[in-house]
């Protein structure tokens, strides 16, 4: 049970505000509802089947990557190389499918493996090389992007080169919900359960809160960190496979610049950048919120150029909110007499 949940309520005059401050997911859902409501009021087509499907398609890959990023950020790390890993995996999966006659399932495994290998590389540099995650993943961002350019050059994989079944999987839906989104939800469930119920997952929270204490408490920090980065890399690899299935056309610029959106989603979703708290569900909701904002802007006739400024403002608001929450929690704990700084 988290300490936050036992805090005495109603420090502000409003129980709703307190509830929102305590359960970030609730706040995100409220924001989503308000946004969707306002946009639909302006243009009822926003909630039409096509539009919702588009939304879910757009959100799917970001949700997937956000789950992986959550795992890493919880340990007080960060993985800036996800965009490059996604691009590399997408291109290799696509070229394997286009050039050899490999079965679709096997090709998807190739993509996953590529992602896992990149994640392992990151983890090794970070843990064994004792390089800070920011620097290490920044470096691999560059290096892997360069590798993609080497491998792809100016060539491009076209949709017509890929097997029909693969593209149908990427573009099809089940009862109006895209397969891609279903995959993302499934991954979200798995990661959520892993973080919430398995010891290896709970250990990640401990490592993020206080690495030294975690080590002294007997947690195998090295192994956990490596697992976290391999997981993040694999999910980015899976994202690459889904990218290839969805878009069909893959060239050297696939996934370029995606890492900012994923970090934004994670931060907005309530995962603390200094590690130790947050949930995958929150990150997924954050990703969904950002996607809805992107899609709502043209409908609300707001210049698309406001997009990035809004993302930036949201990140700042989110971390300020996080700080407020943690200050209040610390104050409450201090009042109860625990030795929290």
């Amino acid at each position, binding site marked *: 049970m988290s300490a936050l949940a036992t805090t005495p309520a109603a420090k502000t005059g409003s129980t709703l505000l307190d509830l929102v401050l305590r359960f970030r997911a609730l706040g995100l859902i409220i924001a989503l509802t308000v946004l969707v409501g306002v946009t639909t009021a302006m243009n009822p087509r926003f909630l039409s089947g096509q539009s919702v499907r588009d939304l879910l398609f757009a959100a799917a890959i970001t949700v997937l990557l956000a789950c992986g990023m959550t795992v890493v950020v919880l340990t007080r790390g960060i993985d800036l190389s996800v965009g490059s890993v996604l691009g590399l995996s997408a291109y290799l999966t696509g070229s394997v499918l286009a050039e050899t006659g490999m079965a679709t399932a096997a090709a998807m495994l190739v993509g996953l493996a590529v992602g896992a290998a990149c994640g392992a590389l990151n983890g090794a540099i970070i843990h064994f090389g004792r390089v800070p995650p920011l*620097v290490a993943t920044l470096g691999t961002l*560059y*290096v892997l992007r360069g590798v993609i350019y080497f491998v792809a050059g100016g060539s491009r994989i076209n949709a017509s080169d890929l097997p029909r079944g693969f593209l149908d999987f990427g573009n099809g839906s089940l009862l109006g919900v895209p397969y891609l989104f279903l995959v993302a939800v499934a991954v979200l469930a798995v990661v959520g359960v892993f973080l919430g119920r398995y010891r290896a997952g709970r250990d990640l929270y401990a490592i993020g809160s206080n690495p030294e204490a975690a080590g002294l408490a007997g947690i195998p920090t090295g192994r956990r960190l490596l697992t976290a980065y391999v997981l993040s890399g694999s999910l980015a690899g899976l994202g690459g496979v889904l990218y290839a299935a969805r878009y069909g056309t893959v060239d050297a610029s696939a996934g370029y610049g995606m890492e900012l959106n994923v970090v934004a989603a994670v931060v907005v979703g309530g995962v603390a950048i*200094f590690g130790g708290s947050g949930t995958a569900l929150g990150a997924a909701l954050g990703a969904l919120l950002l996607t809805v904002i992107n899609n709502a802007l043209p409908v609300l006739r707001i210049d698309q*150029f*406001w997009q990035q*400024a809004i993302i930036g403002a949201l990140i*700042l608001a989110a*971390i300020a909110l996080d700080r407020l929450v943690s200050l209040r929690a610390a104050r409450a704990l201090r009042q109860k007499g625990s030795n929290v700084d």
Partner: protein
Amino acid sequence: MSIKARSKDLWSQTVRWGRALPGKVSRGRDSASVRVLTTWDAAIIAVTLLFLLVAARRVEHFGTARNAGYIVLDLAPILLLALAMTLIVTTGEIDLSVASTVGLTSAAMGVMWNGGMSLESIMPVAVLLGAVLGAVNGLFITGFGLPSLAVTIGTLALYRGLAYVLLGDTAVADWPRAFTGWTLGGIGESAVPNVLIPMLVLAAGFGLVLHATPVGRSIFAAGANPIAAAYAGIAVGRLKFWLYVTSGAMAGLVGVLWTLRYSSARADNANGLELTVIAVVLLGGVSIFGGKGSLPGVLAAVVLLVALQNALRLAHVSTEALTVVTGSLLIVAVLAPNAATAVRGALRTRRRRTA
């Protein structure tokens, strides 16, 4: 006191500080890294000089005065940003929003120019705007106590977004030749670029502040151990705030330089440059954890990186290779000192065991 005597005094003071504080502030197992670090600066400077010599010999057109001019123009924005970034990273923080600040000030310049303001008044306003943007960072980080990584990722997106709001996808390109010519030109008839002198003056200024003034010592102290520094009477929060303002002002200056050099104010100017700036700062030996670093190392690293890219381009090496090289250098820059420390530690343990 005569100037000679005063500078001698300053020098001996510097040497004393240089020998004393780092060893005192970070003790024990860290002093090995300090030793590694001081040799890292020397190493990076040596590598840079060696590279320049080899490249001048082996790569055609590299060793010409004209090429040197191009290298100086190419590295000017990176160097100016790296000056302030060095100070910030030494205090243990980071500023990822510098390139977006450059973009926003450039876009603002374009809007002001289109609005009929004179260029002579636009330029200081741009620097001032940069300082204000830096102050916003400082407010969030020191005022609200938020982590600098997250805040500057947020302002990275916010400032770049505002740049797009100001100028959209268009560019303002009708800057007067007198100014753009000066930015691109040389002193008199020589090939020495006009921008070199202000750059050297600023670099010298920052270097003096960091290595020869009490402010500089406070920066090292704040980075090595903020709590101890606070107890020692250093106003850590205020110090960091002004460092962010400085970083913003430098970014504003780079905005002016960039706009005039390319004769183009665009919202996407300097897109992605922050990564290069951090790469050179780390390559120059500044510790990402704070508390250690030197400016000459960073200056050498800037020259090395830009000269390397220039030489590779002249040698017909592909664009992709440049990306891989930059990324690898970044990782190596932090990996190597750690590896060296580990090796040193292992050797010492072995010696102790066999002793």
